């Protein structure tokens, strides 16, 4: 059994129809409930819920404060490699994109890590393209081993791996894995991933199950907004979340909200997700789940990020570079995508604090994953 069994009991077109047929009366009934369930979430992400965004935001703010207090966690990505054997129509690292490829050496990894550490970060997210031969499990494990002493919390966003491979990395001190399905629409997924291992929809869909079985501490989920209708994709993401929470109950979960950003050879979004839509979605997730971590990256602009502190977001990145070596080794190399919020870490910290929130750098002990 895996999420695939649950997934197959739903039909995209039926869901889409249901979401677009929700009425204002139904939203009002949902908002009277204490406990919001998946069927209610479906209503809260519908177009009919738009007039209720402020009410949802107020409620989201209250329950986020109850569970997370007045705190925002900080993390930063570190791109290790832009090599990739996939063709993805929306990604700057796509194999058919004629950019110069590079993978960081040991010295470069340490140099980047040192730079990041000086900025104050203790939670780091290692990112690669999908190139198993050059940046396979042994490379990732080696990178974790290199920087483990400097960071309490090491997460990765890399190609989907086998359960045993995840187990090896967890033994090395890995805390979390972020793996986005991109879109839950099978045909659209195939269109955007025509070549490479990533074109296997089912293998990617089963990745969180392999992670859960491997005993990972945290799994990050999400859809890439712009490929398909964000409302239906978000329903599937929520369905995935609820399935995982029941099945792998010892694992923590986070949701991210990546919207398509400009990049070399870029793709125009099929479906636009407005700022108001994103606020609606963030609040709907919080109402569905008081405990799930909600993360917002530098893909979003300053204004949006400033306000999201009060909407239910619990973790932030800042000053992100989306190119290997982007912090100190080779700052001018080509990025995976352009970021929108270019403020420094210090500026982001001040912005969060000025809104009455504590900036949390450390919220994990490496001893918990590295006690052997």
């Amino acid at each position, binding site marked *: 059994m895996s999420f695939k069994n649950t997934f197959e009991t739903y039909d995209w077109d039926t869901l889409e129809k249901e979401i677009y047929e929700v009425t204002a009366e139904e939203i009002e009934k949902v908002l009277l409930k204490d406990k919001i369930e998946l069927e209610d979430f479906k209503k809260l992400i519908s177009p009919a819920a738009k007039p209720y965004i402020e009410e949802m935001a107020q409620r989201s703010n209250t329950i986020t*404060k*109850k*569970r*997370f*207090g*007045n*705190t925002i966690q900080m993390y930063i990505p570190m791109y290790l490699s832009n090599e990739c054997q996939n063709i993805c129509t929306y990604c700057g690292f796509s194999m058919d994109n004629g950019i110069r490829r590079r993978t960081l050496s040991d010295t470069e990894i340490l140099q980047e890590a040192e730079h990041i550490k000086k900025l104050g970060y*203790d939670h780091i997210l290692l990112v690669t393209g999908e190139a198993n031969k050059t940046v396979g499990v042994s490379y990732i494990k080696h990178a974790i081993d290199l920087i483990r002493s400097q960071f*309490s919390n090491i997460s990765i966003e890399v190609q989907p791996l086998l359960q045993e491979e995840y187990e090896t990395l967890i033994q090395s001190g890995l805390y979390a894995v972020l793996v986005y399905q991109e879109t839950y629409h099978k045909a659209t997924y195939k269109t955007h991933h025509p070549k490479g291992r990533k074109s296997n929809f089912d293998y990617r869909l089963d990745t969180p199950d392999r992670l859960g079985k491997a005993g990972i501490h945290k799994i990050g989920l999400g859809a890439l907004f712009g490929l398909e209708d964000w409302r239906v994709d978000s329903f599937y993401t929520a369905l995935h979340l609820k399935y995982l*929470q029941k099945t792998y*109950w*010892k*694992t*923590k979960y986070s949701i991210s909200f990546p919207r398509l950003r400009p990049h070399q050879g870029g793709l125009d979004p099929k479906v636009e997700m407005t700022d108001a839509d994103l606020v609606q979605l963030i609040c709907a997730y919080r109402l569905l789940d008081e*405990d799930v971590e909600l993360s917002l990256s530098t893909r979003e602009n300053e204004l949006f990020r400033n306000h999201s502190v009060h909407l239910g977001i619990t973790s932030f990145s800042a000053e992100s570079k989306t190119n290997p070596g982007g912090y100190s080794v080779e700052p001018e190399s080509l990025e995976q995508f352009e970021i929108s919020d270019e403020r420094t870490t210090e500026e982001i910290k001040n912005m969060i*604090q000025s809104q*009455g*929130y*504590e900036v*949390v750098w*450390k*919220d*994990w*002990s490496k*001893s*918990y994953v590295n*006690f052997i």
Partner: protein
Amino acid sequence: MTTDILNIADKTFKSRLFTGTGKFSSSDKMREAIIASESELVTVALKRVDLENESDDMLAHLKSNQINLLPNTSGVRTAKEAVFAAELAREALQTNWVKLEIHPDPRYLLPDPIETLKAAEELVKLGFVVMPYIHADPVLCKRLEEVGVQCVMPLGAPIGSNKGLKTLEFLEIIIEQSNVPVIVDAGIGAPSHAAYAMELGADAVLVNTAIAVSQNPVEMGIAFKMAVEAGRMAYNAKLAPIKKHAEASSPLTSFLNDLN
């Protein structure tokens, strides 16, 4: 007013309000609220402090003769991880006190009774003063007492829920049966909840979210201090009994008096 003293292991406490350090909007605000509450035992999550860094912001703000640090193992999922974390804390913070928290469930943070008992036994053998966070399970409390913990910390409701004493029936049994101090932990969301726990005979309460997330943590810290004192005083003064039936002014048997 005379305050009776709470003893746990080698320490004495005038205040029966223990506090936490999470969820405050700043370290300054945390310190102010804790000082105002007059709490003498403050729990600190190991995962939040940098044990290798002496100038760690949170630890720096808690430096005071009045405040005893109680490291907690929040974040561990097994007895083995808890023992390792406690040993790290002992070395870094120079205290053999540990609040044992093992919650493999990251959503409701409900404690694992089996792993907690295993870890408690091991930690007691290693010389720790063990304060276990547990469900309000009277049998588990007795088992923990048998392995040598210095107190028990049953929950009133899930952590951070502010729902109050949802486990009331079991807390009463635990308080009645316990030979070690009973500290009601988790779920206390209002000073009235804390006062009620103290009236029932709890030896202390631990409060975090209700203070940290309030609009005014300093005033809320003071409110909890007063509530805990009032509740304890009421307990000591012995509450007037609650009667199930009204006392009739002309009882059925009053005629017997007339017969004499």
